[in-house]
């Protein structure tokens, strides 16, 4: 029995299945995808019939395609909305809940609940809320005296309409993480601060938030990388970048090019861009929001 621990080869034996799985289903498809981005492919499941001319044509198209720039802009907006909206609101809510004596579990359940609902179902739900002809919001505004209908999905409002449900859905996720972080802070610190005369607000700013730094860094990193992958809810509410291709994110635009426009090789190119973007942003996030060993 003890020899198992001494002989390192057994470690590799246990690591092998996961390694093989990743090679087969992540790294191999990833490199095939890079190869595909240079080919001319109209159907899924094939490598195409010929090379693009020039072979890097799709990468040049990234610079001239106005929709990819719209997608990148929207994705960056989504990242900002994630950091400020999801993590920011979650921080405020967790601090508030941390300061109440009773009902903590109730709020945890309530705020976390949207996470367990399918994003597609949420998309359909918000479609009804934002419906032009007498959706919930327009009916509400009508009661308040507004006479004309607002198109919440038009060019001007679409981005905001798309981000509200996405932010709303994931607030609970970060709320739970931050709440757990707050629970790990020793009560003795708060008690001594209170004895020293610190107000509740001062305790938040001088104890809670500084001690939450590492947890916040983790949340921001998760938020940034998560924002790059948001797909289902925006696609349900704004299929094909509706209206006027103004609501595409990098993920939805990649799907559109691959599955709807049948421009599979260009979709593969956008996928490469997403990976590069993901690696870069993760690196930047880790650098900016580096976890500290002081806390």
């Amino acid at each position: 029995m003890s020899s198992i621990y001494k002989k390192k080869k057994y470690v590799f034996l246990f690591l092998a299945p996961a390694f093989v799985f990743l090679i087969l289903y992540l790294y191999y498809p990833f490199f095939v995808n890079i190869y595909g981005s240079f080919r001319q492919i109209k159907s899924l499941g094939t490598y195409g019939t010929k090379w693009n001319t020039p072979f890097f044509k799709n990468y040049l198209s990234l610079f001239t395609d106005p929709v990819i720039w719209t997608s990148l802009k929207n994705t960056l907006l989504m990242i900002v909305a994630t950091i400020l909206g999801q993590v920011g609101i979650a921080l405020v809510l967790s601090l508030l809940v941390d300061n109440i004596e009773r009902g903590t579990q109730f709020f945890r359940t309530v705020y976390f609940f949207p996470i367990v609902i399918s994003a597609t179902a949420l998309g359909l739900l918000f479609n009804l809320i934002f419906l032009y002809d007498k959706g919930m919001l327009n009916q509400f505004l009508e009661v308040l005296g507004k006479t004309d209908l607002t198109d919440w999905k038009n060019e001007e409002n679409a981005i905001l309409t798309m981000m509200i449900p996405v932010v709303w859905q994931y607030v609970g996720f970060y709320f739970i993480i931050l709440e757990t972080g707050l629970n790990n802070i020793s009560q003795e610190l708060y008690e001594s601060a209170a004895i020293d005369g610190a107000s509740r607000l001062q305790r938040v700013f001088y104890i809670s938030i500084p001690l939450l730094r590492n947890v916040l860094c983790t949340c921001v990193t998760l938020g940034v990388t998560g924002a790059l992958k948001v797909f289902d809810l925006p696609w349900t509410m704004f299929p094909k970048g509706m209206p006027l291709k103004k609501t595409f994110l990098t993920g939805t635009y990649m799907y559109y090019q691959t599955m709807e426009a049948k421009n599979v090789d260009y979709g593969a190119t956008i996928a490469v861009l997403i990976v590069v973007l993901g690696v870069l942003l993760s690196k930047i996030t880790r650098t900016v929001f580096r976890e500290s060993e002081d806390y």
Partner: protein
Amino acid sequence: MKMKKITAFLMTAVLTMGLAGCGGETAPAAATEQEPATEQTESSAEAESSAEAEPSGGSVELTVTTTFAGEDSNAQNYKDAVAAWESKTGNTVSDTSATSDETFKTRIITDFETGSEPDVLFFFNGADANDFVNAGKVVSIDDIRAEYPDFASNMNDELIAASPADGKKYAVPVNGYWEAMFVNTEVLDAAGVEMPGADYTWDQFLSDCQDIKDAGYAPIAAALGNIPHYWWEFAIFNQQTPDNHLDIPGSSDDATGKQWVAGLEDIRELYQRGYFPDNTLSATDDETFAMFTDGKAAFLLDGSWKVGGIVGSCQSDPDDPSTLDADKLSHFDVTYFSGKGNRKTTDLIGGLSMGYYITTKAWEDPDKREAAVSFVSHMTSDEVVPIFAQHTASALKNAPTVDESQFNALQIKAMDMMSGVTSLTGAVQDLFNGDCRVSTFDGMPDIVAGNVSAADAVQEGVDTYQDSLE
């Protein structure tokens, strides 16, 4: 030439049905037993087919995909016919039917590409099927008949369209279709506009749209950002005649290309005049359809399958025909799309554009082959097809005479309209497959908003088409 022959057959079938209805002939026994289209659930459930293959033994699960879903007139008839087959054979159907749109077509093609195609599918018989036909992933009717000689023997082979990919016949048709303009007459009355007739012109249409708009209604119910198909088809048809409508342009500058560009520019003109709903670029088809049925829009350009959706909107329970509000239904009518140039107003788009395919995957599975043949035979039997065909044509050799008394008011109006049709031409978009349409379908919002010129969009589509031929 082949297309013209099929069109002639269809016209004969449609006109015969229409005239039979108008003449008030007594229907033969098979037809008189039918309930009204929306009340045919019982009869379809009991439908039996003499032409079917023997039951396969009763433990097979077939995966089936059709377009009989959502607002389609035959959504309920389909469920009933499937239930009848399941009950009779003991087999089961795993159904993934969905509303027919570009996403549905893409899903089907992707399913074939990734090897997850259904066993049986009801799909378009035009260029949309080229990819999986070329890949040998569906079985031709001739190949099936080599094993099952009676397969689709009740169909008039002349009316079964051949695949443009290889000229073979794959899809067994059920019901024909037509595309025309539905009208909410309540809106017309409120705007002081007359019901359009067989001599309705484009200029009259523009004038009426302005009157309707001035009266505070949306003249046209259409979601250009979601389903621009029907406007695309008719706007182009309006620049042409039935003889040249199925031509594909070689470039946006040639004669056909210019006609396509002019058609798209007509749609842009309608948009810029404000004749579409305010949210036409951000709405779904369901939303604008609801505007039409709720009396907020006057005209709806759509297909024969929408009759059921309109009737359903007049029922307090869409699944219960006995809850039909006949008075509400009386406010709906259907007429020809306004004519322009050399296209007569009474020239319509229509035909038999879809049918049941059996996939190679099911055919090569010894457990599923017989069940698939049995299923398609049942769904295309002499008893089931008339229930689906209703007020449209079918490819049956022995189509029963239609009994007008069994139809609802809108179906009768549809039959009256069809009795005046001068030609029925297939949709050119069925030949201009998938990705070729992207620049003018998905690109329609940019075209009407002026972000992309119609000529550039047509040229992009033509380039993609030329690439697909290589």
